[in-house]
């Protein structure tokens, strides 16, 4: 793997990839949310990431930090629900942590994401094991490794983290109202977090293989 400098364009494409993934998987996310929530997670994220990408396309912020911060702000101002402030805060805080560097390396990205995920945990007063998005986010950030470049490992860890929520008893968010009945269902937010890291791996993979997505 080549160590790459990640620029604003990389982050912009990552967000576009998340939007596309969320679009594709909206029905599934909503189904999961219908089992233990209120059947809106898919449409929530679809609306939010579409708005975020539209703003990115229009404003074209020129630093990685500015891209994530703008995307986060747009999520907050368009999603609502629990996931809007939570994902919005994740991206906004990560963006802030990246400062105004024109490019960042993967290790810096990993640190920024860790900051963002911590902010999510604090905002939602949640911890790993509560059957929330944190159960995918924390393992994924961890799996990025020292270098921050183990994108494929992060993809796998996020997916595993999402699957691992199935047997958990929900302690936060709407699913917690079901008590014991929340057991046996995969958390929708953890599932969308896996999409976030899958999109990151895809975007990084495209860079590594020289396909920067512009041709697609």
């Amino acid at each position, binding site marked *: 793997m080549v160590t790459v400098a990640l620029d604003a364009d990389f982050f912009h494409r990552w967000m576009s990839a998340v939007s596309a993934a969320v679009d594709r998987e909206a029905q599934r996310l909503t189904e999961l949310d219908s089992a233990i929530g209120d059947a809106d997670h898919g449409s929530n994220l679809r609306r939010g990431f579409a708005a975020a990408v539209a703003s990115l396309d229009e404003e074209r912020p020129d630093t990685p930090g500015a891209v994530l911060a703008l995307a986060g702000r747009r999520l907050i101002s368009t999603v609502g629900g629990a996931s809007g402030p939570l994902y919005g805060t994740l991206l906004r805080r990560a963006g802030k942590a990246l400062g105004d560097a024109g490019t960042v390396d993967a290790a810096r990205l990993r640190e920024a994401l860790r900051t963002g995920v911590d902010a999510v945990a604090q905002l939602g007063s949640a911890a790993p094991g509560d059957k929330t998005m944190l159960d995918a986010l924390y393992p994924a950030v961890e799996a990025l490794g020292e270098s921050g470049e183990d994108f494929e490992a992060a993809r796998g860890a996020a997916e595993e983290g999402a699957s691992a929520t199935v047997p958990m008893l929900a302690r936060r968010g709407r699913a917690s*109202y079901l008590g014991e009945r929340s057991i046996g269902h995969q958390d929708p937010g953890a599932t969308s977090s896996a999409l976030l890291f899958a999109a990151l791996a895809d975007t990084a993979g495209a860079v590594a293989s020289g396909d920067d997505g512009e041709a697609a």
Partner: protein
Amino acid sequence: MKMLINVPETVVADALRGMAATHPDLTVDVERRIVLRRDAPVADKVGLVSGGGSGHEPLHGGFVGPGMLDAACPGEVFTSPVPDQMARAAAAVDSGRGVLFIVKNYTGDVLNFDMAAELAEDEGVQVAKVLVDDDVAVSGSTYTTGRRGTGATLFVEKLAGAAAEEGAPLERVEAIARRVNESSRSFGVALGAPTTPAKGGPTFDLPAGELELGIGIHGEPGRERRGMMTSGEIADFAVDAVLEDLRPEGPVLALINGMGATPLLELYGFAAEVHRVLAERGVPVARALVGNYVTSLDMAGCSVTLCRADEELLRLWDAPVRTPGLRWGM
């Protein structure tokens, strides 16, 4: 999917256009999703702002008007509104005496209202918040998010609204709202699931001959599934669940609430059973309200909310109110 809609994406905007056309007493900002009293900001009055996911109508937009809310912020169906809405609404209703946010206790609502409060305070608006968490179905110690906000929201909005209309200062309006919430408990039952535009079908499967006890108002399944019960048995169960937690020693305000698709004919029959149970338990009913007030789209079912009443709360309850959903005395 069978709903009376154009496309799922415009459901909330379409409804707001309809409210705008129907209620000349309201100012409806369809674009920004804010329903306001036409005369906002009302001079020298504390402003009341509520909001939450759509699909619970008439809550909250239908409770905007003299004697109740100054503004409501509807989110997407079953999705909390975004902070900009409440921040803007706060600015629009603030007469300089501050604004009370009435927030149902759901993670999404809490987070978005918190962010809105920060934004509003940045703009110089004094904001107080009260959380409504009346649903006894989720009172166990494992439910670390706390109880859900359901039917008591109507009591909080009406009674705090009346206090604000009388000219009470922010601390007092907030104190009344908090007292009403603390004096109220609810329990709900579903006979069927609602159909959301996003899902395009029922949000959970409920086999014929079964019902869900302890449901919320977002299409989430309840705490427990049972074989079908009679109206009288449901009243026994729901009222006892509420009383166990509330332990009123005097008269109560009672809301016998339909979840949306339960006919008024059935709801009145259920109300009779609720009155019977309360009489059996020695709890006098000072005032009762029967109807579809805090709904969950087209969910079939009902909920019971009781609020310990005293002289002051009864006076505030009887005070005039003029909103699309609740109106008397004017």
